[in-house]
């Protein structure tokens, strides 16, 4: 019963790891995942994906989901 958490780019450096596995117990939304995984307040500029699709911070997560956090994109 766990959530796979991923961080990219500057967030990965800030958190200090690229992937974390957290216990799904007591976790309802993406915001809960962030707080549990980072121990920090959510940054509203931050982007979120659930299972490789964009999602909002208040979206509900399910056991086994891959939840990713990353800064504004800068490709192209």
């Amino acid at each position, binding site marked *: 019963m766990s959530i796979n958490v991923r961080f990219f780019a500057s967030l990965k450096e800030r958190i200090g790891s690229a992937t974390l596995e957290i216990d799904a117990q007591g976790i309802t939304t993406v915001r809960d995942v962030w707080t549990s995984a980072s121990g920090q307040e959510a940054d509203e500029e931050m982007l979120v994906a659930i299972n490789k699709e964009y999602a909002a911070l208040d979206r509900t997560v399910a056991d086994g989901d891959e939840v*990713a956090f990353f*800064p504004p994109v800068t490709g192209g």
Partner: protein
Amino acid sequence: MGIEILEHAFDPWQAVADYRSNHLARSKSGASAVFVGTMRDFNEGDDVQAMVLEHYPGMTEKHLQALVNQSMSAHNLDDALVIHRVGELKPGEDIVLVATFSAHRKAAFDACREIMEALKSTAPFWKKETLASGERWVEKNTAG
């Protein structure tokens, strides 16, 4: 439709020529519009020596496919090709290619620009620049 994420330098003009000869009936698509983005050796007033492009394997490809698909339908394109570099780049190397193929020039132009803007604002890529003074993440893309 072609979507490629490459970890090595590429020749975008050769890529378009190859894609066209392998995938398109040449006398069908009268209009080809292409954008190529190339790494500059300056950004925000600073000399940039190198760059690392990070992406989200799996999500980046999926996201690009979705946005190219949407533009292909909206503009009734014959085909489209997107290639994007990741990993370490040097100034002068090409970062991105967007090519659209259509019977009509309006559709090709509109879709090429639309795909490029959507890519820049939503596709999961992140740039980290190496300056003489150290490294920095590019914080935000400029509007097109």
